């Protein structure tokens, strides 16, 4: 991370903001799941997220690609993400946020493996080491 002339670059502020917002999401999810079931949380989550997503899209004024495969993968992304979030909320009902959130944050392990197997993407050494750390952490936290 390069900090030019002692000043923090603009992108880093946005990255920190992203970390804060996502971290806050995990925290609020724990509070919410103490009273609401995963399905209820997912409904509220979707309704809360939609205005932000719509504002983001309106601001971008992007041209909409209507490639059928792109649309299909996009819809599948939304469905898979929603299903995964249900699992996250269910896990939060049984375990503390400080344990569940780092574990579910390991989702790139599957992406990396699937990309390696199906897309023949190469794994770098950092990712291989990360995978070993991830598996070790899951074993430790399962105890």
């Amino acid at each position, binding site marked *: 991370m390069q900090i030019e002339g002692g000043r923090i670059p*603009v992108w880093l502020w*946005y990255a920190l903001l992203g970390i804060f917002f996502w971290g806050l999401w995990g925290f*609020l*999810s724990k509070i919410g799941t103490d009273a609401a079931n995963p*399905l209820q949380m997912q409904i509220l989550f979707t309704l*809360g997220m939609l205005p932000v*997503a719509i504002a983001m899209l309106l601001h971008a004024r992007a041209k909409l690609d209507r490639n059928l495969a792109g649309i299909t993968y996009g*819809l599948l992304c939304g469905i898979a993400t929603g299903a995964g979030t249900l699992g*996250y909320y269910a896990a939060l009902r049984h375990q503390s946020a400080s344990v569940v959130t780092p574990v579910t944050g390991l989702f790139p392990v*599957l992406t990396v493996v699937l990309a390696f197997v199906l897309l023949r993407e190469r794994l770098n050494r950092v990712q291989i080491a990360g995978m070993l750390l991830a598996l070790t952490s899951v074993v430790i936290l399962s105890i």
Partner: protein
Amino acid sequence: MFHWMTYAAIAIAMWGLNGLFMKLGTNRASAHSMVIWVTLGFTLLLPFLWAGTGLAGLSLRVIFVGLVAGAVNGLGNWAVFACLEKGAKASVAIPLTALYPLCTIALALIFLHERPSALQWLGIGLALAGGAMLSHETAPVAAPEEQLPCAR
């Protein structure tokens, strides 16, 4: 009732699968177009969720917390998009933002008074390091939303 790790595994599996779909999708449509289709996919689940439950019985406080949770997740997505648009290298920014559980942990320790055991701290540390390292891409720059946990 299953062990909590079973539910966490479902999240990892689905979000991991999402990463693959995103890789395939962004090869065929622009990143912004993908956000539209992903958001639509997300809302497609709503009727099924409504069929399984309702919001009756929830306090206004819980409803507010749930709505704000969704909004801040969307804002997180926006911030990471903006981060990459402001010239961040994805190979640096994505592993950095993968550390977002640190923020959740800090908030949970301070406000929810969670106290992980020594063994859990070890697991948490390894998971954080592993998550950041797994997100390290040396190949072509990933689309920003490719790594987003939720409204991808």
